[in-house]
C-alpha cells in the first residue's frame, strides 16, 4: 500500500505533527463553516491571538503539571515563551489587556491550533485544531451557561452528529462532597488525582477507610446518570451547601434545556474534572459513540481573567475539529461541480481562460490542464472532477466526458454553457 522510499529521500517531521491535504481540508472547512455560521448568528465575534505567549501567562491555567504540557522556547531577550495550549487562556489574556468593563459582556469565538507536549513514545498528536467560544462578563451565570450549551447542541445537531452525549458536571458538587467527607487538603488533592486518572478502585479503597457508608454514596454520585431526579434522591441526606447549590444549578439548566427538547443528550456526571485548573463551576464534555476521545469540552472559569487584570466571570467551550471530523459520518460536502478542461495551449489560452471564467462565475470549479498527461481520466478522477471537457479546435463544440456515469457527449459551447448554468450538474 505504501511505497518504500530510499533512505536518502526520507524527510521527517517532529513527532505528533502532520500535514493536511486539500481533500481533508475541504471537509474540515465544511465543518468549520457550519460551526462558524452558528457562532456568528449568536453574535460571537472571531478573534485570533499569537501562537506564542509568555510562559508565565500560559502556565497560569495549564494545571498542576504544566511543565509537561507546554512546548517552550526562549525569546531573543531570554524570556521563556510557549506555544499556547488552548485558546481560553489567550482569550482571557486578551480580555484582561484590552476590554473595558463598560464593554461587557463580550462574546468571542475562534478557530485555532493549540499545542500540547506529549511523550514521544505515545505518538499522540501535539497539535489540536479547535473551534470554540468564550462568553465573558455576563452577570447572569446560569443563562450564559445555558446559552453556550444551546449553541453546542445546535452545532452538534447541525453537523448531523448521532449518538452524542453531553456529560454535565460541577466543581462545586465534588467540593461539597469533600466538605461532607471532612477531608483535608492533602486528601482532596489525592482524590482529585484519582478521579482524573479514572481509578475508581483506588478511590473506593481510599474512601472506604475514611467512612464506608459515605464512600458508597460518594462513588454512586460520581457515576453517569441521565435522570436528575435520581441524583436528587441520592443527595437528599447530604446537607452540604455546595452540594445542594450546584445540584440546583444543574437542575435549572436541565429544566431550561428540557423546555427546548434537548434533554435527551444530557448525562449528569460529577466525575468530570478537567485537567486544566481554571474551571470554577459547571463543567461539561462531549462524547460520541464512535470516537474514543472527548470531542469537545468546556465550562465556567470565573477566576481566570482576574489573573490578567479584569475580575469578570466567563464560560465557554471548544470542539476538537479532528475528532468532530471523524465523528461526522455524513458530511454533506456541498457538491460543487468540478471540471477539468484539457488541451489548453498557448494559442487558445485567451479564449479558454475566458470561457472557464464564465463557468466559475456560476460557482463551478474549473481546473485548467496545460500539460500532456497520458491518462487524463485517471488524473481527473484522482482530483475528484465530475467532467472532463475538451474544446474542439474551432472553439464551437465541446467534448464532455461525464466521469460519474462514464458517458461522452459532444455539444456546442452555447449549449454547454447554458446547461451548466441551469443544472450545475449533468
Amino acid at each position, binding site marked *: 500500500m505504501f511505497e518504500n522510499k530510499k533512505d536518502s529521500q526520507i524527510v521527517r517531521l517532529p513527532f505528533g505533527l502532520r500535514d493536511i491535504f486539500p481533500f481533508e481540508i475541504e471537509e474540515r472547512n465544511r465543518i468549520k463553516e457550519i460551526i462558524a455560521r452558528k457562532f456568528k448568528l449568536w453574535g460571537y465575534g472571531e478573534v485570533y491571538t499569537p501562537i506564542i505567549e509568555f510562559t508565565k501567562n500560559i502556565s497560569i491555567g495549564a494545571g498542576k503539571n504544566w511543565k509537561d504540557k507546554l512546548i517552550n522556547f526562549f525569546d531573543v531577550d531570554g524570556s521563556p515563551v510557549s506555544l499556547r495550549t488552548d485558546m481560553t487562556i489567550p482569550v482571557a489574556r486578551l480580555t484582561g489587556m484590552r476590554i473595558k468593563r463598560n464593554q461587557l459582556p463580550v462574546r468571542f469565538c475562534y478557530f485555532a491550533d493549540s499545542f500540547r507536549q506529549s511523550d514521544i513514545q505515545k505518538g499522540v498528536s501535539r497539535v489540536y485544531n479547535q473551534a470554540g467560544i468564550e462568553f465573558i462578563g455576563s452577570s447572569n451565570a446560569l443563562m450564559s451557561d445555558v446559552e453556550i450549551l444551546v449553541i453546542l447542541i445546535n452545532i452538534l445537531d447541525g453537523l448531523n452528529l448521532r*449518538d452524542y452525549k453531553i456529560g454535565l458536571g460541577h466543581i462545586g458538587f465534588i467540593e461539597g462532597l469533600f466538605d461532607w467527607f471532612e477531608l483535608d487538603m492533602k486528601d482532596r488533592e489525592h482524590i482529585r488525582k484519582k478521579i482524573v486518572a*479514572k481509578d475508581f478502585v483506588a478511590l473506593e479503597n481510599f474512601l472506604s477507610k475514611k467512612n464506608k457508608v459515605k464512600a458508597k454514596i460518594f462513588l454512586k454520585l460520581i457515576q*453517569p446518570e441521565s435522570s436528575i431526579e435520581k441524583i436528587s434522591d441520592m443527595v437528599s441526606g447530604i446537607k452540604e451547601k455546595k452540594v445542594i447549590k450546584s445540584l440546583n444549578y444543574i437542575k435549572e439548566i436541565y429544566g431550561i434545556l428540557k423546555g427546548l427538547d434537548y434533554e435527551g443528550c444530557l*448525562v449528569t456526571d460529577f466525575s468530570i474534572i478537567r485537567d486544566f485548573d481554571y474551571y470554577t463551576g459547571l463543567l461539561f464534555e462531549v462524547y*460520541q459513540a*464512535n*470516537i*474514543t476521545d472527548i470531542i469537545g469540552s468546556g465550562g465556567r472559569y470565573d477566576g481566570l481573567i482576574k489573573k490578567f487584570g479584569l475580575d469578570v466571570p466567563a464560560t465557554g467551550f471548544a470542539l476538537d475539529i479532528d475528532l468532530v471530523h471523524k465523528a461526522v459520518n455524513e458530511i454533506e460536502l456541498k457538491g460543487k461541480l468540478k471540471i477539468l478542461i484539457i488541451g489548453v495551449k498557448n494559442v487558445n489560452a485567451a479564449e479558454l481562460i475566458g470561457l472557464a471564467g464564465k463557468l466559475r462565475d456560476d460557482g463551478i470549479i474549473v481546473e485548467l490542464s496545460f500539460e500532456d498527461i497520458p491518462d487524463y481520466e485517471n488524473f481527473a478522477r484522482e482530483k475528484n472532477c465530475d467532467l472532463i471537457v475538451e474544446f474542439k479546435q474551432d472553439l464551437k463544440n465541446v467534448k464532455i466526458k461525464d466521469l460519474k456515469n462514464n458517458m461522452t457527449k459532444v455539444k456546442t459551447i452555447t449549449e454547454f454553457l447554458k446547461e451548466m448554468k441551469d443544472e450545475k450538474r449533468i
Partner: protein
Amino acid sequence: MKKGFKIAIPKGYLFDKCLDILSRAGFEVKSLMENNRKLSVYSGEDAIQYIISRPMDVPVYVEHGACDIGFSGKDMLMEKESKVYELLDLKNGECRIVLATLKDNLEKVKEKYRHFGSIRVATSYPNITKKYFDSKGMQVEIIKLYGSVELAPALGIADEILDITASGKTLEENDLMEIEEVIVSTTRLIANITSYRVKYDLISKFMNKIKNVIK
C-alpha cells in the same frame, strides 16, 4: 447503535479466572471454554462479543475503543498508563512485582552503585521501573526483556531485576532474593472512556453482576 458490547479477555493465567467470575455472575461462557483457536467469540444469549487477546493488549484495545470493557492486571495498567476507567477490583489473579537480585549479591550491587553511580536493571516493565527508581532518586540503566527476566542477573547482563512473581518459586529456582515489593497487582475491570458514558446502562448492569460475585 448496536446493542450489546465487546469485552477483552486476557489469555494466559488470568483467562480461567475471568471465565470463572463470568460464569458465577451468570454469563454464558461455554463457547469461550471450547478449546479452539478462535480469538473472537459471540455470545448471543448475553449479546456480548468476547475478544481474546494478550494481556498486554487488553488496556490498548479498551483505550482505543476496540472493546468497551476488559479484564486487565493492574500491573499492565500501570505499565501502559492507559487512559481507561478502572471500575472494579476483581480481587483475583494476585501477583506481586518485586525488585530482586542474586542471593548474597545485595552488598555488591550497593557497592557498584556507590562506585559507578548507576546499576543495570532488567525488566519487562520499563515504565514502572523508571518511575520506581525516579521516586528513589536513583539513576539506573533499564534493559527491556520480553521474558525469562529471572535469568538476567545470572547471565551478567543486569544487577537487579524488576519482575512479576506469584509464589516466589521462580525467584527461588534462579537463586534470586527479593529486595523490595514494588506493587501488588490484581485483576481490574476497565472501561473505555466513551463507552462508559454512551453505554453506561449496559456497562453498569454488567458491573453490578460481577460485583455481586467478587469474594
